[in-house]
């Protein structure tokens, strides 16, 4: 097997669903910016790219009609650059990178992009027309259960308390806020945001550049403690300790060793391995607690060998549980905002930065490889839970 090298990885800002900068921006426009951004950052010609694989959790309506083919064409890639959509819900973006990496590893191609795109403003979570199977919904409704309820289940079953979750949420915001101030989000490509507004008797379509994540906010643990539960009258999962629903896109350019030489570019990291594990649908959040050990076992590595982690914060409850299982929660030095030696979600996670479903896998990859480079971290792991009861995890190695 050949190695798959990551040459560049970028993302658009993540902006709040409905109220954020991208609420009126078509999903195609977001992914076009990411695709153009990644080739530009890599310094290669668009024509070099043979294939674009794109993750999307709800590939319908504006995100339908094989966005994976249409978006590269809109971005100015030649007709020879092919493309497809893949869907593994919240791991779709990572799945897309893995598929592109495999294609390179197997020798089926030399240059490919793995990407993700989701406008949760435009195509709602669950899709426009959710239609659970009637009999299955009557006998086994937990495959269709709301993600919030699964987070409550994790909290209840594994004794993750409200205080723990709110504290975790606070640190996510604090880390993101500090990273914004320090201009640490170098993986962001400024992205045009469309707005339609009524001015002087006319509706006008305007565009402005958006270059920051607009869900980051100043919080306190006490303030978060006052929020009402969002999914259960007696629950502990709130808007403040859950990921934000977000619009965004991200892309990673991968190459074979031959291609690196041919185009004379330097890689950042290798995409090493990818693992997916299953779990009970009604506690899907525990997925990473199974996927990461599976990945590490495959790689012959231990938790201690990993220098940087991007664990998607779908909900504080599930993220804390996964960290507990990996042994990187109890000691706050691993993750708290005031710890200089933190290694988990060092610039904050989805609670502050948002979770644009099918984009998240590609978004976190961009964040991770750029941080690995900055921190000179040898191994990085990205992982997330997946609706329906799965976890996915990928291993990156700095070159």
């Amino acid at each position: 097997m050949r190695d798959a090298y990551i040459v560049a990885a970028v993302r658009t800002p993540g902006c709040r669903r409905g109220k954020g900068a991208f609420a009126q921006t078509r999903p195609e426009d977001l992914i076009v910016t990411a695709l153009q951004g990644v080739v530009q950052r890599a310094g290669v010609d668009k024509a070099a790219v043979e294939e674009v694989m794109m993750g999307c959790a709800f590939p319908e309506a504006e995100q339908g009609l094989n966005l994976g083919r249409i978006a590269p064409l809109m971005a100015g890639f030649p007709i020879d650059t092919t493309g497809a959509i893949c869907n593994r819900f919240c791991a779709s973006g990572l799945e897309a990178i893995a598929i592109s990496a495999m294609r390179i590893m197997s020798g089926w191609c030399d240059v490919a992009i793995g990407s993700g795109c989701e406008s949760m403003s435009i195509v709602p979570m669950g899709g426009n027309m959710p239609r659970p199977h009637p009999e299955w919904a009557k006998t086994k409704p937990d495959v269709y259960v709301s993600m919030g309820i699964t987070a409550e289940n994790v909290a209840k079953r594994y004794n993750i308390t409200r205080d723990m979750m709110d504290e975790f949420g606070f640190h996510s915001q604090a880390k993101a806020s500090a990273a914004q101030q320090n201009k640490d989000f170098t993986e962001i490509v400024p992205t045009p945001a469309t707005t339609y507004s009524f001015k002087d008797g006319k509706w006008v379509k305007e565009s402005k550049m958006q270059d920051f994540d607009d869900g980051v906010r100043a919080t306190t643990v006490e303030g978060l403690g006052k929020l009402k539960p969002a999914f259960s009258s007696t629950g502990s999962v709130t808007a403040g300790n859950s990921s934000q629903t977000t619009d965004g896109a991200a892309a990673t350019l991968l190459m074979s060793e031959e291609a690196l030489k041919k185009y004379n570019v330097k890689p950042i990291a290798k995409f090493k391995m990818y693992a997916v594990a299953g779990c009970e649908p009604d506690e899907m959040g525990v997925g990473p607690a199974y996927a990461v050990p599976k990945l590490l076992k495959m790689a012959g590595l231990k938790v201690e060998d990993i220098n940087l982690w991007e664990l998607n914060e779908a909900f504080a409850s599930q993220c804390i549980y996964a960290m507990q299982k990996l042994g990187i929660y109890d000691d706050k030095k691993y993750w708290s905002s005031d710890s200089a030696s933190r290694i988990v979600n060092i610039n904050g996670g989805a609670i502050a930065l948002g979770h644009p479903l099918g984009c998240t896998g590609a978004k976190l990859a961009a964040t991770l490889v750029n941080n690995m480079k900055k921190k000179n971290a040898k191994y990085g792991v990205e992982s997330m839970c997946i609706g329906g009861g799965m976890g996915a995890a990928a291993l990156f190695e700095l070159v």
Partner: protein
Amino acid sequence: MVRRIEKAAVIGSGIMGGGIAALLASAGIPTLLLDIVPFDLKDEEKNDPKARNRIVNAGFEATKKAKPALFMSKKDTDLVALGNLTDDFDKLKECDLIVEVVVENLKIKQDLFGRIEAIRKPNAIVSSNTSGLPLAKMAEGRSKEFKEHFLITHFFNPVRYMKLLELVPGPDTKKEVCDFIAEFGEKILGKGIVWAKDTPNFIGNRIGVQLICEAFKLLETENITVPEVDAMFGPAFGMPKTAVFALADLVGLDTIGHLAENSYELLAKDERRDVYQLPKFVKDMLAKKMFGNKTKDQGGFYKSEIDMATWKKIKKVLDPKTLEQKEFDKKNVPACVGKAKEAKTLADKQKAILFGDDNGSKFAWKLIASAAIYAANRVPEISDTIVGIDDAMRWGYAWEAGPFEMWDNIGLEASVKKMEAEGYKVPENIKKMLAGGNKTFYKIEKGKKFYFDFASNSYKEIVTSPNMIFLANIKADASKVVESNPSCSLIDIGDGVFNLEFHSKMNAINKDMVDFMGKAADYVYHNGVGLVIGNQAPGIPGAFSAGGDLAFMLGLAKAGKFADIDGFIKEVHKGIMGIRYAPIPVVAAPYGMTLGGGCEVCLACDKIVAHAELYMGLVEIGAGLVPGGCGMINLWRKFIETIPGPAKLTDFGGFFVPAFMNVAQAKVSMSAVQARENGFLGPKDRIVFNKDYIIGEAKKEVLKMLDEGYVAPKKKKIPVMGAEAHGMIWAEMFNMKNGGYITPHMETIAKKIAICMSGGDVKCGTEVDEEYLMTLEREAFVDLWKTENTQKMAEHIMTTGKPLMI
């Protein structure tokens, strides 16, 4: 010139100004709401438009948040534009009607009218909502043209809900302007118009404040307590439960004080002038700022406190002798109150209160004898007729009967004898009336109502708008009631149109009515042309029909007679669908509470002509049931029947979910507009602002349909969402159950609702027969009665009025 109100302005954004603006907007009229620029602007705020509009913005926010709601729909708030009296004054020149509702200060009002005169467009009407200032003084210094278009329009609080609109013209006000505003107020704003004169406090507050002040006086001298008085003069006497003293708390004792002071000063010749000099304990209350509800810490006649130990609310009442508020026993009421509660008619209730032999009755008689005499002495001083005074008290104070109607109820001749024996000075006009052998203030002859006119010492017809039909008047002629049973009647309302009137308790639909519906339709088929389903039960908002007769079905269920319930529902379906497919036009005229069975009757009709105050919903889930009168079928039909043919319905869920939620969440509209927004009223259905118009308007609709060539609706198959809906609903129910948002039996019922409304186990988009849907509904209904939980829920709501969450 044809007068129109295309744009109105309200100046003053307090509770009354905001309320008037909200009513105008709810009636569809773009309205400019203005208030002053704050006096205390900081230098940096002086050019900031936001700061300059601070007062009007705050007033409008309060109006939008008011409870009960002043706007009928959130969307209507867009029709109100805000501004201030400095920067936006010019905008008044676009307005056809300008209503002044600023502080009750003559100089300020005079100055404002001076400014308005300089800018108003010719012919624009200007009015004041003053509750006491003389019109003549307010118009001083204005031109003749201004005075010709100037009058007082006095609304009552809360504006949307209180029907009274007192109109006071000046000597120069044009008749054309008066007629126009009266019609506008009645037809467009739905108000009850009473013509008052330029006398202090006009009619409602003159009579109302006299009663309150009289009660203050008597409280000092008689052996009676505050809650005893309020127990007698609440619903037991046909008055709102705020009665006398709680009303003073609600209005504010400071306001009552001003009104009384105003009366004392200006009413030098009033025979009860002394009563307006407030007793010492009231003056002491005023000095201590015990104004009532608006001074929560001090309270008023009543005070609510929270017991910190138990967190329970405790209500205390004033002892006028010590000015202290103490706890009291709410159940300790005068004996006459118990008797009044047992009485069936208002007349018997009022007799029970006034003519008992307990201490309470003695007080009550003294209060009412003086109030009745006071009212009689006010004709023609404040109103040319007794009708104006009765209307004002019914509409402005929510009394079920005005003073003269009350007098008729308790027997005029006998009560006058009692007054004379006790040394009361009976008014000359009453003596003259009785001497002429006229023993009642009102009488009904040949479907028309007459009042006794003191001026001519004879009866005169009460002339109302031809749009108004009063069933009570028509029914006085027994030949017009063509069929009747204890729960409903069929009344001939002319031109071949008949009215099916409910008159059971809360007009709940029972077996009598169900049986009667078919008969009524049949009778009209043979003897007439069309049917109106309407009634005129008293109360604010009143009940067109508050639901179905649960007691009857609960009895059957408890006896295990489920086959009888099944049979009953078959009859209900026959009755309801009989109405729907009758070969004659059927128009429902609902108002107020139109719930459950009442709502289902309306949904089956060709058309609904609804009063703007319509609280409509299918609330059966609260009683442990699904709707049993084809309500779910007809609601779903209404949801989808207006989709144009070429538009292919792909997303059934987009229609199904809101229709389902209406029933599963027992959504009740808080106005007719909201009922339309919820999908209960369709595009053909109409909303009418004046409650007295709805039967008349419904009758017009019947005749119009006939004129246009009426053809009864044909049975059509109905497309349903089928099993695809179940997947969605079951999955969502699973979330709700996990979130603790739904109780187990409610979940069972909600799922049955989903089955019924989606047409059961069929493929999405299947067109099914109505009979099939009726079977689903009937089965669900009977199945639920078989459960212990439904029986418990039904029993609970019957006894407590609240749903049992199990």
